[in-house]
């Protein structure tokens, strides 16, 4: 009898799952005029990026400003940052599932959906950086040639795709159960949530290992890199989510978000200081020791042999991070009437982390080069177009995902 039940249930899934997908898509494309304007704008920007990328593939990567000396640029910088954003979502998952914060539990799906959008962007940035995207299949295990476990990049392929699948499963399952009007069975998602917590840490650790394992790049070759990556991820992720939640509350009228916003604000208050402490520790080691090991840091902060392209970037990041840290330290930031200030602080922390991890970390790893040549790098227009296009696509995914999840968010289930 039970087997018959299972068979019937399977058949019902076969018919109701496509219905769920269709319904979700329909729902995600319903909205106000402002929503359509937002999506049209994102589509337009994405198309500009897609066109720039197609030109890059057709004409070679000479259209970028990367060189043999600075062989990674804006794409890998953004990739690194997006891995952090994906991992940052876990700062909602931990309070929700490990500390049983009920309010956070009700809206935790926002963090998981952010992870999905961010990982998709990561994969797009990696593809944008490839000289031969047509040979992407060489990276697939079995049909390609997968240099596992020696190459850290293969570890990254595994952990990023694994994290994507984990979050797709968790969000997909919860939304589908909601659609069926059934109570989600904890056995089908709680273990995956627990794995995803550890996995979130792993994606950013492995991404740091990509860089810090290279002996020929003294600026990256530090044991502090992975902890630093995690600390700044736990600033940028929650900062993005706070802004997203304020917008969701305002635009979609979702309630119950104030307490999660307060929790995330308190988390950033700690992580932003931990991050600054680690940056200070790194800089002390570099500058107090001196020697040729410090030349990249010197170039980054003060310029070297008259070359100063990164100096404005890094001081902007320091200014934003310190200002944001001071604002987060101030208890008044939690007051409801200071929401605009909270958003400003989040934006500062977000942009600060973006610069720190990209222009402030990936690029100086290459300057001076391994033969101590100083070749500077400023992203080309084409690189900016592709980058902004990928961001637009990521925001599209995030918007659609949030819209699909809105019914869940509006009526928090009793779990």
């Amino acid at each position, binding site marked *: 009898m039970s087997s018959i039940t299972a068979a019937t249930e399977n058949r019902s899934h076969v018919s109701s799952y496509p219905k769920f997908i269709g319904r979700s898509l329909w729902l995600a494309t319903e909205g106000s005029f402002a929503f359509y304007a937002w999506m049209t704008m994102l589509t337009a920007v994405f198309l500009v990026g897609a066109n720039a990328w197609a030109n890059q*593939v057709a*004409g*070679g990567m000479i259209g970028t400003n990367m060189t043999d000396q600075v062989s990674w640029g804006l794409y890998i910088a953004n990739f690194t940052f997006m891995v952090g954003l994906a991992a940052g979502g876990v700062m909602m998952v931990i309070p929700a599932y490990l500390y049983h914060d009920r309010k956070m539990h009700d809206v935790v799906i926002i963090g998981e959906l952010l992870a999905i959008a961010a990982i998709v962007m990561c994969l797009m940035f990696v593809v944008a950086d490839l000289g*031969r995207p047509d040979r992407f299949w060489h990276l697939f295990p079995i049909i390609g040639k997968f240099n596992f476990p020696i190459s850290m990049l293969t570890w990254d392929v595994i952990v990023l795709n694994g994290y994507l699948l984990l979050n797709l499963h968790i969000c997909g399952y919860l939304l589908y159960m909601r659609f069926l009007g059934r109570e989600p069975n904890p056995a089908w998602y709680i273990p995956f949530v627990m794995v995803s917590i550890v996995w979130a840490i792993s994606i950013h650790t492995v991404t740091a290992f990509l860089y810090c394992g290279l002996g020929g790049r003294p600026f990256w070759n530090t044991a502090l890199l992975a902890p630093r990556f995690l600390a700044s991820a736990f600033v940028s992720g929650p900062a993005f989510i706070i802004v997203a939640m304020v917008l969701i509350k305002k635009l979609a009228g979702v309630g119950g978000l104030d307490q999660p916003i307060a929790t995330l604000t308190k988390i950033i208050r700690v992580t932003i200081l931990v991050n600054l402490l680690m940056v200070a520790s790194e800089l002390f080691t570099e500058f107090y020791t001196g020697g040729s090991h410090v030349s990249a840091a010197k170039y980054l902060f003060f310029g070297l042999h008259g070359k100063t392209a990164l100096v404005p970037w890094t001081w902007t990041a320091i200014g934003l991070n310190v200002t944001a840290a001071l604002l987060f330290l101030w208890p008044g930031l939690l007051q409801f009437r200071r929401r605009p200030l909270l958003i400003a602080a989040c934006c500062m922390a977000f942009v600060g982390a973006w610069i720190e991890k990209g222009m402030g970390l990936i690029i100086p790893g290459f300057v001076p080069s391994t033969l101590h040549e100083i070749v500077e790098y400023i992203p080309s227009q084409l690189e900016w177009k592709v980058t902004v296009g990928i961001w637009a696509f990521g925001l599209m995914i995030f918007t659609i995902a949030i819209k699909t999840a809105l019914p869940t968010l509006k009526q928090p289930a009793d779990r």
Partner: protein
Amino acid sequence: MTTTESGSSDPDQRNRSLPVIENFSRRAAVKGAFATLGAGAFVAAVSPLRQASKNSSAAEFLQTHYTELSPEQKEGVLARLEAEAKEEYDADVTIADDRPIPGTKFVYAINLSVCNGNGKCVEACHKENNHDRDTNQSYIRVLEMPKGTLDMEQGTTSYSGVVPKGDKFYLPVQCQQCDEPPCVDVCPVKATWKEEDGIVVVDYNWCIGCRYCEAACPYHARRFNWKKPEVPADEVNPDQSYLSNRIRPTGVVEKCTYCLHRTRRGRLPACLEACPTGARVFGNILDPSSNIRWILENKRVYILKEELGTKPAFFYYFD
């Protein structure tokens, strides 16, 4: 509507949180029209890809890794590459598949007391290896260093004027063919590996162009093809090998191969032959009577960045 044993009839009706849709078919038509418009715009946006795909054949796309090609497949690949060279560069070239000579381990040494920084090696490499003429590419870079230091920070690769200058010495750097090559470790697709004679090679038709090896190499030995290499037909070196100096595809990484298309056929590397000072010594370290063996046994040689543990097969010494 299907009815299941669990009793959940039509999910649509049960889910009251979902909005009631009016004018369903009209809205669906509008949405469909916009989706089509978006898809069309996307196809138009990525249309430059069609141009790119014209330059790459199905056979190239499906080609397997060098080490997995059967002898027949290899022959087909070499013939195809020769035809491509004819078509794209109007050059009649022969592309061989030179394999390591058993019992050989190639090692290079440079006498820095003799090298005077004239740069002939850089130029010879440029021509021999069919480098892009536009960017004046070469696998060798020469640093002009102040006497009294080995700190590269104090050297420069962009020196000019009459050489040698009295207070300077000259340090040519190319691929060190490390015994522990970091570039090989980091490659995610095994497109680069170390052969039995010690030469680190790249399968240009397998490389995906991620440039992780460029980041990993401590000697700036690797180059990326940022654009299609330009070589005039009459300047193409027709004597080519699959793993070395054949004209590289766009978007892949390349490097010095100790001129394996020469050295595996008993000749010397082009940079050595071009050197007017005799600073360069090349040979098989496993041959006890070789020059290189004598130098390694009798001179006080050193290697670059020894502390990184890369174990270069490239030595420097002063007289």
